[in-house]
């Protein structure tokens, strides 16, 4: 993949270095036209067209971008590509991203690890609601930034502890009839999934609150995968549910089907400043997305498949987040599941999440 790094993104003469690659002038229009036309003549000639793209790139011509984008548009579903096609698709993206973001971007393609099934455990008692995980996730995974609100895959729900009050003991209903059918002597107590996730306190943790971070639960039986009409989202053998962003048609059925509100849609072209872009990416993970496609947490596939922890696990200041291999009885997650009281969210929906909450 390094062999493709011939774009010289830092060279000042390259006109795209300051304009995010969008407004690239095309001095050799003829060349573009010819290659594009020949391309359209036979859409099966994918490899030839991308060779043309590479050739054009070698000569440091700006037309290459047009070729690369066309080839990208014609590529098939990642899961069904041959290894060579996969490598080609990744190389194509590396070239484009490197140009667009003005730095060397790698697009990893490490396949599912043998003998591994990733699982996650979160100590709900320890979480202080600081939301460093959500921030770290955005920085790691190249989500779209905006002034109002970044696109976050992790949301932390703040839930009031609630209370029973003695003075409301008699406030049953119907009122005044003597015989009560029900009571009102409570404020919300132990309410699940009706949390507030826009809280802005001066200090965390707040006295009267408990926090419950949520993200994709990487279900073993994911409803979102079932509904996808084009199988662009699927479960990988080592656990995470991933999306081929290049195959997604943007129908958003998966967003409707997800019971955990874990999926996000790019309503416009994502805004990812060059200097904030994380250049270490995975094809199925944190590579920059395009407008009109859905994205989600992948357990930081670009990190975890290379032996690192997910960004949220690494950043958690209280050690509430644990990650590991469910198939290894000695991993942290397996031991937590074996020894602590654990629960999962909405298991009644037959989703079978690999995201466990626990207390100790």
């Amino acid at each position, binding site marked *: 993949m390094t062999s493709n790094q011939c774009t010289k993104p830092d060279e000042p003469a390259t006109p795209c270095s300051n304009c995010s690659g969008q407004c690239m002038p095309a001095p050799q229009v003829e060349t573009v036209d010819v290659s594009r036309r020949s391309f359209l003549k036979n859409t099966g000639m994918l490899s030839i067209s991308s060779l043309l793209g590479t050739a054009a790139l070698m000569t440091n011509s700006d037309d290459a971008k047009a070729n690369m984008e066309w080839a990208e*548009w014609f590529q098939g*579903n990642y899961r069904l590509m041959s290894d060579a096609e996969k490598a080609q698709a990744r190389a194509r993206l590396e070239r484009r991203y490197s140009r667009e973001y003005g730095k060397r971007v790698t697009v990893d393609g490490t396949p599912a690890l043998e003998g591994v099934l990733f699982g996650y455990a979160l100590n709900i008692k320890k979480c202080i609601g600081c939301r460093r995980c959500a921030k770290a996730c955005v920085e790691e995974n190249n989500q779209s930034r905006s002034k109002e609100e970044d696109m976050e895959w992790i949301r932390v729900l703040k839930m009031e502890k609630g209370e029973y009050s003695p003075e409301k003991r008699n406030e049953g209903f119907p009122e005044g009839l003597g015989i009560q059918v029900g009571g009102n002597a409570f404020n919300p107590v132990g309410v699940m999934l*009706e949390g507030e996730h826009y809280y802005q306190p001066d200090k965390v943790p707040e006295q009267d609150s408990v926090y419950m971070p949520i993200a994709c639960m990487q279900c073993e039986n994911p409803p979102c995968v*079932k509904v996808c*009409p084009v199988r662009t989202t699927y479960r990988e053998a080592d656990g995470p549910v991933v999306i081929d962003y290049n195959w997604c*048609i*943007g*129908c958003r059925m998966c967003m409707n089907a997800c019971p955990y509100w874990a999926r*996000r849609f790019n309503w*416009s072209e994502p805004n990812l400043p060059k200097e904030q872009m994380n250049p270490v990416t995975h094809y199925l993970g944190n590579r920059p997305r395009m407008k009109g496609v859905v994205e989600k947490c992948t357990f930081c596939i670009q990190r975890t498949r290379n032996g690192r922890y997910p960004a949220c696990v690494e950043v958690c200041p209280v050690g509430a987040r644990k990650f590991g291999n469910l198939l290894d009885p000695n991993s942290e997650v397996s031991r937590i599941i074996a020894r602590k009281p654990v629960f999962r969210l909405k298991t009644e929906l037959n989703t079978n999440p690999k995201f466990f909450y626990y207390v100790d």
Partner: protein
Amino acid sequence: MDKITHFVFDYLSETRLLREVKRILGDKVSQFVLDYVFYVVKGGLAFYAWIFFLFGLIGCLLYGDFLHATEGLTYTGMTSQVSDGLYLANLIFLVGIAAGAVTIVFPAYVYHHNALHKVAVLGEMLAISAVIMCILFVLSHMGRPDRLWHMLPIIGIYNLPYSMLAWDTLVLIGYLLLNLAGGFYFLYRKYLGLPLNDKFYLPLIYISIVWALSIHTVTAFLISTMPARPMWHHDMMPIRFIITAFAAGPSLIILIFLIIRNRTRLWIENEAIDMLSHIITYCLGIALFLSFSEVVTELYHDTEHSLGLKFLMFGVQGLDDLVPWYWGSLAANITAFLILLTPRLRKNYYILPIACILAFGGIWVEKGMGLLIPGFIPSPIGEFSRYLPTTLEILVTLGNWAMGFLILTILLKGAIGVLLGDIKYGKAMSVNNLDAGSNAPASMPESA
């Protein structure tokens, strides 16, 4: 105007391209197409005004779809919480209209209802337009319409049998093809003055009747198979969809029939309209009963799963955007039902259209936004938010409807021409025949 169109057609028919097309299609078919088109583009001032009005709205649609394609769906009111809106709501409703066309075809061919039998092809034309509108709404709704080819057979992938959306696409396209085949086969034979080949035609009709049920059933499954959205996760959904479709569909058909009766020389008999208003009465009654059952079942113990319905009916946490729509649609449906229930009012063709408009509008709200939005509010994590369609979204929606009505106008006008015998093989247009439109044929009843 006629002379100009005629000149243009004469000129065009001499071009090489058209001659080539003629050679491929054969003489009869190409003559049918030419006669059909020539008949359709002729019309009075009101007709052209209507077409230009529709074109104006279609302009909005093109502009909106252009923005969607280039900038993404950011100009819509949809959010991470409410990820589907006006487009999907209209899509769901229009699948119902397409299925509702079967209320003409079914009595015509299964119960041999004479009056409906004569105009059954108009129902097929309505079905074609409605399905095309559905497809247009899908295109507006998709984040990446340029990747639609990912759903094509062979070069794309179909997630069968799992994805309901894949099934829905299949049945919708199938229904479109069935109606195109059935409708235009009928018109073509009628054009040639030949009898229908029942061995070919009747199976087509019976399949399309069952198929009509399937398209709306699958649309209901599309959203009812999602436990993540308790508002939709009902086994009542498919029957409710079909029942409301069989109320809204014939409501539109009656309105169209009354317009045809008053504005063209095609006379649609009272029996046809009465049959349809009967169907609406039954279906609307059942629809109201199902709504009532839902309210009692959901609100009796008032679980967390009823929050969507509570939001729709009363508003929750001060968010009550949909409350007037819900009660308005309920009132419209009940009023329409009461009017239709009274034989004297139902058979009064000045009051009947009011009931039809009320039922059509009421169901559009109930089954469109009234069903879709409470599925998203509250979100699966219990968040209440707002969804307000943007101006662009409304314009695109109007544009999609305009496109549908344009197609409907063209199809109906041609079909009426064939039924009237104005478009007929051998009666090919010639300058002498140009003013035939203004002469009433013998078949026209005096009462028109």
